[in-house]
């Protein structure tokens, strides 16, 4: 599904990712954890095609094709979805309208027929029940005045409607109450299938308890410093990033002085 190979990314003069390599096979859910400022969102944004980040070396293959050569909307139509850590407001654009425009743009790009208003409404009604969202919220402008939790639910709703092949979720679980967390986990689980994958960025063990990822990776100092099974998350939860063994972590402690407090929860 996704192959990231020695990816180097800079903004201006500073290198943020310094050789990230990662493979997510079809059907798997991988978690990415790591201290604040370690480059998790940067990785997510680069996968989605955000502008100011410059890829200075390495490559990213998505289903065997060069993902970095595509513009953001092409990536979306090809099935890449990014759940934003900070979803923006778009005043004056009703959420329903936004969703329908997005879905139909993707369908058009894939040569599928557009969905009419009636079918679309039925689709939305089914999906919004899964994430326990009121219809009234969808008549409001995109994220306009939405609470933090409502925004995150809205991200999951969009994911469920767009049905991506690869979902990259950037801290979709942060700032959620227990019910919302369950909803987000259920949303991701609904999409779980042999031909879909997810890359879930999180600071918290509790989401992974629901999801049970196939692999957990730790991103620190611009590199993957450790990978392991679901148990790795529990270990990090107990001991923090500073106690990770190995040379990579030493260099990490050198490069950022506040690593262990960086995992604030």
């Amino acid at each position, binding site marked *: 599904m996704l192959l990231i190979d020695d990816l180097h990314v800079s903004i201006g003069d500073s290198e943020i990712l310094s050789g990230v390599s990662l493979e997510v096979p079809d059907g798997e859910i991988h978690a990415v954890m790591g201290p604040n400022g370690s480059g998790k969102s940067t990785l997510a944004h680069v996968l*989605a095609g955000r502008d100011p980040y410059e890829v200075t070396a390495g490559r990213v293959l998505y289903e065997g094709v060069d993902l970095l050569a595509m513009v953001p909307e092409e990536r979306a139509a090809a099935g890449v979805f990014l759940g934003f850590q900070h979803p923006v407001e*778009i005043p004056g654009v009703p959420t329903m309208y936004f969703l329908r425009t997005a*879905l139909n743009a993707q369908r058009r790009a894939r040569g599928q027929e557009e969905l009419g208003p009636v079918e679309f409404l039925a689709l939305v009604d089914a999906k919004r029940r899964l994430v326990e969202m009121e219809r009234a919220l969808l008549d409001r402008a995109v994220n306009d005045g939405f609470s933090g939790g409502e925004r995150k639910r809205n991200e999951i709703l969009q994911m469920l409607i767009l049905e991506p092949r690869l979902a990259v979720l950037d801290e979709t679980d942060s700032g959620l109450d227990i019910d919302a967390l369950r909803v987000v986990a259920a949303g991701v689980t609904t999409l779980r299938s042999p031909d879909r994958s997810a890359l879930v960025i999180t600071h918290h063990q509790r989401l992974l308890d629901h999801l049970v990822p196939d692999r957990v990776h730790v991103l620190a100092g611009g590199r993957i410093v450790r990978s392991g099974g679901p148990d790795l998350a529990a270990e990090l939860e107990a001991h923090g990033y500073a106690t990770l063994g190995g040379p990579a972590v030493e260099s990490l402690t050198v490069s950022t002085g506040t690593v262990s407090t960086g995992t604030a929860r």
Partner: protein
Amino acid sequence: MSAARAELADLAGREYAYGFSTDLDTDFAPRGLSEDVIRLISAKKGEPDWLLDWRLGAYRHWCTLAEPTWQNVTHPPIDYDDIIYYAAPKKNAALSSMDEVDPEVRAMFDKLGISLAEQERLSGVAVDAVVDSVSVATTFQARLAEAGVIFCSFSQAVRDHPDLVRAYLGSVVPYRDNFFAALNSAVFTDGSFCYVPEGVVCPMELSTYFRINAAGTGQFERTLIVAERGARVSYLEGCTAPMRDEHQLHAAVVELVALDDATIKYSTVQNWYPGDAEGNGGVYNFVTKRGRAAGARSKISWTQVETGSAITWKYPGVVLQGDGSVGEFYSVAVSAGHQQADTGTKMIHIGKDTKSTIVSKAISTGHGQNTYRGLVKMLRSATGARNHTRCDSLLIGPDCGAHTFPYVEVKHPTCQVEHEATTSKVSDDQLFYARQRGIPEEEATSMIVNGFCREVFRELPMEFAVEAQRLLSVSLEGAVG
């Protein structure tokens, strides 16, 4: 915005879909302006003496005036002696039915997407079609007459309802008001007239469709709408012009009068030819529009969507005379390419407890310059008056500009004035969010800008709101960034 995209934005001209001209057999007055030309216009129209005298008064006053220079626009000097002040499609004897409309004229309106006959049958919107200053057809007159509503060309109103015209002409915008109002009063050739009698709710939307066709001509139309006590009417004007490489002058006057408890809603979708990508050609849209909320609890509401013209200079205003009267101004003004817009409103509060609302959305892209200029004036008599103004400017690209000049004069301590203003860009975050969901960049920009304008668009009658959104999207084509 990346350099490549900036370049693209500059290079991409905008397609103007209405840029054709039609070969109509046209009757012209000689070029230039003099008392003789005015006498000729008046004679051609068979006008009564009082009207000719009024025109000549306006002309003599105009001769004493200089073109205003305070507005925030630049253009080469206009040679008023090089303009043709009267151009009329020739086959324009009074029509008794739609079938008599010149087939060429019909074809032209069909091409504009306004089939006059179809309009009459299907749309439920009465249309007055004005080509080069002369009304060529008015639909639905019979049905309106049943309700007691008069809706006809200005010329016909002068013939058939001279007392009404005489009572109200110049009562809101006297010819002494300003340079362009004086010019219009001297040379206006036609326009629309509407009278809604006491207690009548006009049974359909009224609209006038203006088209400049002939080359080298100016368009000087005049619209007068009177709503008697308790009457209600909603009126819409639309405008287009052929692509020509010289500038064309459009100097219209619109006067509205609302008596006790009457409501007039006036909407404009202005799409005159804006000029080419280098700034050649395009219409100078120098217009005076004002309503007099004369009666108690009367209401006048202006909604304008200004996407066209090389230069727009207009300040639709309301004189809030009646106690408890209401004035509203909702505006979207786009300046793309080399367009300049200096527009806003004037709200003059005279009566007690009068209330005005101003919502202005200015969008600049390319080299466009957009100025909001608004006056809120509350006289000593306007106790308890309130105004709320909201001015939002949106910039797309690095070479455009937005300017805001609010003027406030308050003469009584019980008055309240609130002013909010914002300037923003189409944010990269918003654009990226939409593109990440699969919406292509241009469509995403257009969607975000339409969202920005939503408060204004929802004031438009439904079918025109759709048209306005479409026009906005066309204006923004190639302006991505």
